[in-house]
């Protein structure tokens, strides 16, 4: 797979006021902090009907009959629809990954099930009515008769002979199989002196955004408007057009305030299509908002890989090759791009290391669970996890310091083409590790560790040096002829100066908490010579600005921000021509200094952007042939991805009696290029670490052997809170990317991609005296305790995978009986 890239973008200096680089407070925060932001569920339209969805309690079953009569009779119920009623949909949910020459099984996935169900929570019917409580009552009256089928929840079991087949038409549970090789992998392992191998279960997690999904559709005068809690309004419009058989000019999609996504709203869900279909059918607004239970069961999950990884090396530590076999649990149906996710693992399988040969073999598998798709990091956290833990193991095998092993193999020349065709744009891996160690003081820690061990206190340190691929991305590499995504990955921007000099900037990205309104305003302000407070950044509405590609894959700044910068520079260039004309100078002699467009060498002659806008919108005296207005657009498609990197270190303490892990210190140095706003970077790093600490220590989506979701609430799904995580010690280095003129790389996923192996390695380092060498996440107290017991010759250790295990009859609650019990007497 060839990847273009490595061409160096021309770097231009911004002209303006030096707002880029400042840690400005977020423009978004006042409305968010004071509760004035408008989320989808806040919106009320006259005559709205509420939708309640009848969901399958079965993980795998044929639908024998659906009786909606009792529900229809309830007061206030206007309609009940089933899959048969939606027969006029033009297409099922599209899955946009179709790699050339690879067969991918994509079963029809309709908003309401047709004939059978494949996971618990699959929508079977929808009840619509004027009262949002009444429709839930009515949904309980929809009687569905199921014929249960055998269930399979473990992806390796699903591949075995005789396993229940989820989609009979394929005769197998295999979704696809493909390989991303580079270099001579056979020689790599033949020539290796040492080969280490690991099986790592990277378990299923949830996005768990605080705002659940919500969608409100209105059909009025032949046009459809959908407000939705989504990361991808522009893409959603294209998909609604395909599924509803309605042209895009008749559809508007708005993402109002969106309360977190983490990839879980990088999706077009059946419920979004369903409310649109219902609104058109009934001619009334239709709203649906997920309950937390619906959110946990039917908002796509992430990870869920079983990884078999091998690294070969010479005795001196020089690595010869890495091979990974990834078994990806796809769930029973696909959403927009789930099967492509492990390919992102393959992109970075070389890590920071100069492997002369790499190969990733991927098998996607159907199971009777909900769909997996992109969750923060999407394939790259899994890759870092397996690479870093296996490098640690290799260091032990070679009796070599794990950091020395890393440094010996760090890639040092940039741009650097990896054996599988990817070109790392820039980097300085030693520099981030040096700084991280300086902050950590490893020698002092090792002394402390030894002293504590004497007293039976187990502390350990773990490291992760990572590189990630982001800034999605170059359309030639990602698109139909590259690795097969059926779309482009440019980003759009439009920068409009108003007649009196303030600015509106439209971006095709669709932020949902990141702070684009602040960071993009800083970029525009410097280029036009205004202050960020008069730059309004508009996003998330298909009826404003050009068609865009929205927010995911840490792309917003490296692609969307670059588009904004380029559009602003077009405006600046036009402004300079106008100023030159008015001041009788050459355009190249006009410079922008502190908000003044002045003639180089004669700073007393100057105009402001407001003066220029006046000339542009009252075009009495413009340069020959110039159009009126001060409004420019840019579609930017990068030549390469961007490759952020860094070094993370975690010190944890393990209570060896109980298995509890406490993170004592967390030190990290990340490099995402020159900072636009360091405050926004810190926020992303902090959140990214917490996300990965969540996976490493707390969170897991668990299904039992019947395919029932056990972790359906925040009691059971142990999302950590601020009280559970440590403070972070962060710093940055700034290595510019040659890919874009800002020199920036993405940062939204970086810390999540980096962190989990550092946490796990710290625990393994702590427990080394007890003989523990490996534990799969999440490192819950019981699993750590079981690992210690097993290392001491007691018990079998924690189960390698918890999918499909049987739970005790009183089980279900993660840390208490919780809201799962029978009715009780007395007050409560």
């Amino acid at each position, binding site marked *: 797979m060839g990847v273009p890239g490595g061409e160096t973008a021309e770097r231009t200096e911004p002209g303006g006021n030096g707002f880029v680089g400042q840690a400005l407070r977020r423009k978004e925060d006042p409305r968010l902090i004071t509760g004035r932001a408008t989320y989808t569920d806040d919106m009320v339209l006259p005559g709205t009907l509420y939708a309640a969805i009848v969901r399958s309690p079965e993980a795998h079953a044929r639908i024998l009959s659906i009786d909606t009569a009792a529900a229809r009779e309830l007061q206030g119920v206007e309609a009940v629809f089933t899959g048969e009623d939606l027969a006029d949909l033009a297409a099922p949910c599209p899955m946009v990954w179709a790699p050339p020459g690879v067969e991918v099984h994509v079963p029809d996935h309709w908003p309401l099930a047709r004939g059978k169900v494949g996971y618990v929570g699959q929508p079977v019917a929808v009840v619509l009515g004027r009262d949002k409580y009444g429709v839930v009552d009515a949904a309980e009256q929809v009687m569905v008769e199921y014929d249960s089928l055998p269930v399979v929840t473990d992806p390796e079991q699903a591949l075995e002979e005789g396993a229940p087949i989820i989609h009979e038409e394929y005769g197998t549970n295999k979704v696809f199989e493909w390989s991303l090789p580079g270099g001579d992998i056979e020689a790599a392992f033949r020539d290796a002196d040492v080969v280490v191998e690991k099986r790592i279960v990277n378990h299923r997690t949830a996005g768990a955004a605080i705002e659940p999904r919500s969608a409100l559709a209105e059909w009025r005068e032949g046009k459809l408007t959908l407000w939705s809690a989504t990361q991808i309004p522009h893409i959603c419009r294209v998909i609604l057009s395909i599924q509803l058989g309605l042209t895009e000019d008749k559809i508007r999609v708005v993402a109002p305030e969106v309360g977190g996504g983490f990839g879980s709203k990088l999706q077009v869900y059946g419920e979004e299509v369903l409310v649109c279909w219902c609104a058109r059918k009934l001619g009334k607004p239709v709203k649906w908002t997920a309950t937390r239970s619906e959110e946990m069961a039917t908002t796509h999950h992430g990870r869920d890989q079983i990884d078999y990884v091998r690294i070969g090396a010479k005795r001196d530590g020089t690595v010869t090759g890495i091979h990974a076999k990834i078994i990806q649990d796809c769930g029973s149906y696909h959403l927009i791009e789930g099967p492509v996710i492990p390919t992102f693992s393959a992109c970075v399988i070389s890590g920071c290391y100069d492997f002369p040969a790499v190969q990733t073999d991927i098998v996607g598998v159907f199971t009777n669970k909900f769909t997996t798709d992109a969750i923060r990091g999407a394939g790259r956290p899994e890759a870092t996890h397996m690479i870093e833990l296996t490098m640690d193991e290799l260091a032990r095998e070679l009796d070599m310091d794990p950091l020395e092993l890393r440094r010996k193999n760090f890639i040092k020349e940039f741009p650097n083409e990896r054996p599988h065709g990817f070109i790392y744009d820039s980097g300085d891996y030693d520099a981030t590790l040096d700084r991280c160690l300086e902050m950590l003081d490893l020698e002092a820690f090792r002394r402390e560790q030894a002293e504590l061990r004497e007293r039976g206190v187990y502390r350990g340190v773990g490291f992760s040096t990572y590189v990630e691929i982001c800034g999605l991305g170059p359309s030639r590499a990602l698109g139909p002829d590259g690795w097969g995504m059926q779309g482009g990955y440019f980003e759009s921007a439009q920068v409009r100066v108003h007649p009196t000099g303030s600015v509106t900037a439209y971006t095709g990205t669709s932020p949902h908490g990141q702070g684009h309104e602040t960071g993009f305003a800083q970029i525009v302000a410097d280029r036009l010579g205004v202050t960020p407070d008069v730059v309004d950044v508009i996003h998330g509405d298909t009826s404003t600005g050009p068609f865009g590609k929205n927010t995911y894959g840490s792309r917003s700044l490296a692609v969307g921000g670059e588009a904004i910068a380029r559009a602003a520079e077009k405006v600046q260039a036009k402004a300079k021509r106008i100023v030159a004309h008015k001041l009788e100078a050459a355009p190249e002699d006009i410079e922008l200094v502190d908000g003044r467009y002045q003639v180089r060498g004669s700073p007393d002659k100057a105009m402001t952007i407001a003066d220029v806008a006046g000339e542009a919108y009252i075009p009495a005296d413009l340069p020959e042939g110039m159009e009126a207005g001060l409004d420019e657009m840019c579609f930017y498609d990068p030549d390469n991805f961007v490759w952020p990197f860094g070094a993370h270190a975690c010190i944890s303490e393990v209570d060896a009696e109980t298995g509890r892990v406490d993170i004592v210190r967390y030190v990290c140095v990340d490099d995402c290029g020159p900072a636009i706003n360091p405050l926004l970077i810190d926020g992303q790093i902090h959140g990214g670490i917490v996300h990965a600490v969540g996976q490493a220590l707390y969170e897991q989506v668990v299904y039992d052997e019947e395919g029932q979701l056990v972790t359906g609430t925040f009691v059971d799904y142990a999302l950590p809170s601020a*009280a559970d995580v440590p403070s972070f010690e962060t710093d940055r280095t700034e290595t510019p990317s040659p890919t874009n003129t800002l020199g920036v790389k993405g940062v939204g996923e970086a810390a999540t991609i980096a962190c989990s192996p550092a946490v796990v390695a710290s625990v393994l380092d702590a427990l080394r005296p007890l003989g523990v060498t490996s534990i799969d996440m999440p490192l819950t*107290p*019981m699993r750590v305790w079981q690992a210690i017991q097993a290392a001491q010759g007691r018990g079998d250790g924690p189960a390698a995978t918890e999918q499909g295990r049987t739970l*005790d009859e*009183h089980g279900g*609650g993660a840390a208490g009986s919780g809201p799962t019990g029978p009715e*009780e007497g*007395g007050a409560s």
Partner: protein
Amino acid sequence: MIPADFEYVAPESVDEAVAALREGGEDAKLLAGGHSLLPLMKLRLAAPRLLVDLRRVGLTGIEREDGAFRIGAMTTHHQVATAGLGLASAAAATIADQQVRNRGTIGGSLAHGDTAADMPAVLLACEGEVTARGPGGERTIPAAELVRDYLTTALEPDEVLTEVRLPGMDGYGFAYEKFNRRVEDWAMVGVCALVRKAPDGSCEDVRIGLTHMGATPLRASAAEDALRGGPLDAGAIERAAEQAAEGTSPPADLNATADYKRHLARVLTRRALGAAAGT
């Protein structure tokens, strides 16, 4: 929150509340802080026809009387946590998070009878009692008889738990060791220890209460017996703690097998006894 349809009353007195419960029959439920009942209603695991809200009946406050604390059933966890009640305050301070402690009540928690809740084991270890008022008047229920099974108490459907009486436990050292995954979680296992030393430093009395180690809160009687009347050194505590899980049949869940819970009970008992004894 989208619960099933229900009626709601907020009577002004306990007697009116009892009358409302009586009228409502089996489909009526008392509402105190709401932090157990409302989540059940939200998930439609509970669908009472009538909610009888106790917010207007008073029943708040803590008084010291005859060496015991009389705690109104509607006293919040926060009030208990900050009232200097020794073990009860220490345990109440670990309940969930501050928002829950501001709303949840000691009476509600005890009446809910959740074996994973902290206060039932505290009441048991202190050998306290609760007062319940029903159509036939008031009665006293000793701690050991209050919780009968999972989420099942000795309270009748038309009774209101009005007051909690906790012996002051003067002269006892105390500790509550709660083990959970996140700070706001229910106890995976909780152990409360009360230790009174004799003048010679030996163990004059010891009480050990276990949270979430069975269908009801439990006393670790074997461990108590092993320690009572003997020395209170680390070795004795360790040996006693080894018996902390004796006779228990703890409910397993996603995060803890029964074996692991028994192991935790032993470790936490040793730690709680050590802290309570000051050794």
